[in-house]
């Protein structure tokens, strides 16, 4: 068990290492002109530019740059300073200042959708084939099929027109301006949990162990909560840690749509303005989070369901 865990952790770390290296090399493939703002390109002469690049160590052979990058990463977890987004600010500091927003929005939305999704799913299974069930199914189909951008826009119109909520996030007006972003984030994940819980509960209704429990005299409610829900929860548990960890990375679309200064748009911004150090920092964090999330998910699944053992769990493929 311990051996397996270690082996797996090691392999995950190798994956992260390769990802980080790949992105580093990809970013080095960009022409060096991109390292300057347009203003600088006009003002600086060719020699001045070369001097600047030289000073930043960007003209060294790639393997030397790579080695320096590894050294900073492994010894100090340091990605250098941002060049374009906030010139001179250390990357980690920049990321930390953005991370708070994404985590706050993400965890609130995720908690709401877990509670609501599971509850609504149970209700749907309980009143199967009733009007309520059909409304729920229609909702899940809508949330699954319609592009997020369209549903965000609809929410925006309804919220702004009828409830007079601010259409952009602002720090001065935190609570009212956070309502719509949270609803948008929760919308699709509620549907995901609903579908899963409903389908699982309906499938399980014909199983033998359920009949046995009924014969023993358990009430239907007890059976549903203690047996069926617990079983339905096991595969869900695998994704929960990853979902919580990935809130850090934020939602690009939501944050761009409502102007939330979170992590999501930062990556697009960083790539768009060729801020290589920021990109590397972000990618490393993304990769670490997703690897760690999968790992914690498997661990949580084992905790909830003692029948599952890690070494027999689907190895290698996630």
């Amino acid at each position, binding site marked *: 068990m311990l051996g397996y865990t270690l082996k797996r952790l090691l392999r995950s770390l190798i*994956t*992260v290492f*390769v*990802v980080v290296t*790949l*992105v580093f090399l*990809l970013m080095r*493939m*960009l022409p060096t002109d991109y390292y300057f703002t347009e203003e600088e390109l006009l003002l600086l002469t060719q020699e001045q530019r070369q001097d600047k690049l030289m000073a930043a160590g960007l003209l060294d052979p790639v393997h030397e740059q790579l080695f320096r990058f590894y050294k900073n990463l492994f010894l100090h977890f340091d990605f250098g300073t941002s060049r374009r987004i906030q010139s001179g600010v250390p990357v980690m500091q920049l990321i930390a200042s953005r991370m708070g927003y994404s985590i706050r929005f993400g965890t609130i939305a995720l908690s709401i959708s877990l509670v609501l999704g599971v509850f609504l799913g149970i209700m749907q299974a309980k009143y199967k084939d009733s009007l309520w069930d059909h409304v729920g199914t229609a909702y899940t*189909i*809508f949330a*699954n*099929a*319609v*592009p*997020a*951008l*369209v549903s965000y*826009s*609809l929410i*925006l*119109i309804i919220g*702004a*027109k009828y409830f007079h909520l601010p*259409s952009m996030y602002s720090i001065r007006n935190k609570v009212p301006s956070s309502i719509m972003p949270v609803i948008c984030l929760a919308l699709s994940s509620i549907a995901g949990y609903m579908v899963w819980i409903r389908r699982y509960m309906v499938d399980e209704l014909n199983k033998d162990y359920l009949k046995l429990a009924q014969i023993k005299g358990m009430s239907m409610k007890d059976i549903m909560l203690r047996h069926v829900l617990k079983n339905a929860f096991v595969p869900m548990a695998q994704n929960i840690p990853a979902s919580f960890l990935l809130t850090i*990375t934020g939602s*690009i*679309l939501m944050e*761009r*749509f409502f102007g939330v200064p979170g992590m999501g748009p930062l*990556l*697009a911004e960083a*790539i*768009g303005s*060729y801020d290589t150090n920021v*990109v590397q920092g972000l*990618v490393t964090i*993304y*990769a670490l989070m*997703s*690897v760690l999330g999968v790992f914690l998910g498997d661990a949580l699944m084992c905790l909830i369901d003692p029948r599952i053992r890690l070494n027999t769990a689907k190895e*290698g*493929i*996630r």
Partner: protein
Amino acid sequence: MHNLNDKELDIDAMPDKKLFSVVPYELEEAERTGFSNYSYWGSVWKNFCKKKSAIVMACVFFALFAFSFIAPVIGRFSYSELVTDNTQIFISPNKTYWFGTDNLGRDFWCQVWYATQTSIKLAFIVAFFECVVGVAIGCLWGYVRELDAFFTELYNLMTNIPNIIYMTLIALMIGQSFAVMCIAMVCFGWMGMARNVRNLVMIYRDREYNLASRCLNTPLLRILSKNIFPYLTSVVILRLALSVPRTIALETTLSYLGLGLDINTPSLGILLRNARSYFVDFPYLLLFPAAIVSIITITFYLIGNAFSDACDPKNHV
């Protein structure tokens, strides 16, 4: 056999005509042993037709699809001749401008339908190639043991980097156009399908009939295409159908972020992006594109689900 003894007594006394008589052909009796007029695609079609809602959805979808090509023709303005006109901005839908005009005073009708065409075309092309690449790689991945570790690592590696990074890098290094977008989406979209197929192939790979085929030295390609692929159809079709709404959604997101199609190719994402600041005051700028894209994605989603149910041999009689 059990009452043979009773009859044995009179058999000799009977004439041939009484002993043998012509049995009329009965379909039911004939089917009881061996023969069956079961055909896979026939049953699929029959099952699919049983679902009235799915048929209606399919009709709605095809009508809309056809209309997206007719609409720009019957419209009063053609897309290539649109001009910005400050006096004509934000006109609500009327007789001249059927869907109103946008913030630059351009007719919205032809933009919306042109964008619909673009989205549907993109979605179909991407879904088709994703499916081809995904199934091909998935089969190899699942069947050839030596390749398993390689593809698994490749999969883990690729899914670990957010899609948005690939898309941004491609947009910056190669440029933005319809073809680039298609290729990029296929390049990073086949993985889900491949993984799904791989898991199924692993299940069927070591069944006895495949062992027999291997013993008889059947070529790999033939085993994959004749022995294994038929089992995959329902999953493949479901994935294919679901990838259409997904592709449309991804396109709108990417175009909204400025990483998708170039601004000269109107697409739903770009329309919504341009209208973002004016939605609240001029809701028609959102409602028309939103309604159309919702109809397309929802109908396709439902058709896909119904069709994959029909494809599942477990649901066949």
